[in-house]
């Protein structure tokens, strides 16, 4: 038999290699000389190993299968028993058809048209389903009270445990504005006079920031000269 010059990676798999051997040796696929085929197949595998190439497990599996078929065909067979080579014949025929079909497809492949990306249209989000109004009542009932168990406890709920009073920013906003309405302006430090608790001082400071942001008051100067003025009502 003729030596093959192919490399294993040129084959799509063991069936491809077997088909090549079959074609090369003009083997009748319906009457495979299994011993010869096995010998050639193993030669290819050995060549690969000599070349230090990884032989894919599928090739080794097929080798085992060929050995099995060879052994089985040496044993005497009952008349109604199938020739163990027939399964291999079936596999090879099927793969042969697959290759032929691939060749046919290749002649059709064109890849000569380009399609268009979908147009990006703004979606219409407006909700249009119709509901029973009673669903709202049910939903409200479901929502109700969920909060009490899930929300972090409000600061007030600690008031009994914590001696420090919590001073709200809102109350200090009122304090700052009231002071300024009376006096027009006040020294920054004076604003904190009498605010002994830290909570109160923080609240005054936050209230001041808020008022500055909303352009209700202005802070001028720095250090000890820093002054807070009510806007739109400045004195000369």
């Amino acid at each position, binding site marked *: 038999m003729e030596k093959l010059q192919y490399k294993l990676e040129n084959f799509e798999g063991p069936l491809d290699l077997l088909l090549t051997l079959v074609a090369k040796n003009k083997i009748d696929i319906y009457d495979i000389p299994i011993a010869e085929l096995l010998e050639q197949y193993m030669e290819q595998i050995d060549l690969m190993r000599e070349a230090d190439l990884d032989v894919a497990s599928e090739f080794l599996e097929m080798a085992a299968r060929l050995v099995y078929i060879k052994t089985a065909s040496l044993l005497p067979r009952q008349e109604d028993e199938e020739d163990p080579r027939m399964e291999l014949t079936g596999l090879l025929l099927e793969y042969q058809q697959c290759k032929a079909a691939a060749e046919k497809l290749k002649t059709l492949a064109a890849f000569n048209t*380009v*399609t*268009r*990306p*979908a*147009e*990006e*249209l*703004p*979606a*219409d*989000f*407006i*909700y*249009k*389903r*119709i*509901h*029973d*109004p*009673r*669903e*709202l*009542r*049910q*939903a*409200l*009932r*479901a*929502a*109700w009270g*969920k*909060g*009490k*168990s*899930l*929300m972090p406890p*409000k600061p007030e709920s600690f008031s009994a445990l914590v001696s420090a009073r919590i001073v709200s*920013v*809102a109350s200090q*906003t009122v304090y700052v504005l009231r002071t300024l309405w009376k006096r027009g302006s006040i020294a920054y430090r004076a604003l904190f006079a009498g605010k002994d608790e830290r909570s109160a001082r923080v609240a005054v400071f*936050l*209230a001041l920031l*808020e008022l500055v942001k*909303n352009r209700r008051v202005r802070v001028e100067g720095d250090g000890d000269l820093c002054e807070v003025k009510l806007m739109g009502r400045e004195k000369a």
Partner: protein
Amino acid sequence: MSIEELTGQAEAILFASGEPVALDRIAQVLGVRTAAAEKMVSALQDKYNTPESGVHLLMLGDSAQFCTNPAFIEPVRAALDLKRNTPLSQAAMEVLAVVAYNQPVTKAFVEQVRGVDCSGVVGSLVQKGLLEERGRLELPGRPLLYGTTENFLRCFQLESIDRLPPPPGEGEQQEQEEDSDDGEDDGPEQITLDV
């Protein structure tokens, strides 16, 4: 090459690109002057820009772009499933209910009632046209207020917001299990939260 064929090539290029294509670019690829590309595009505009055409060719500065005839946007949206009409989630329904019965309310109020962050849900209800902003609360941070929309009334088959079914809790005793007849409109009372 014939002018028809060149125009067809320009058409193919414009079609395949989803984005505007500069006339310069068309001219360069087809090996013609920009003026010629301009003429081709203008011929294509004559061909496409009719009232019955599904596709129009727009000039945007020195670029051209195919787009859908705006007159046909609705069937296109329907076909492309751009109508986001998945039913409301339970979370969305609850937020909607809390707002509907207490409007105008801040997001913080809704979150306090439900005990979970609602930013995403509120945003999507606004996008769906079920909630709308209603100014700000004059408190530090000036939080946004939300209320329900006309579209909300339509979706819940309400003539006006006064026609909301009575809230649970009040008049619960008269209320038989399921027959909450909608006629009983004892109205718009606000639920007061005891927190």
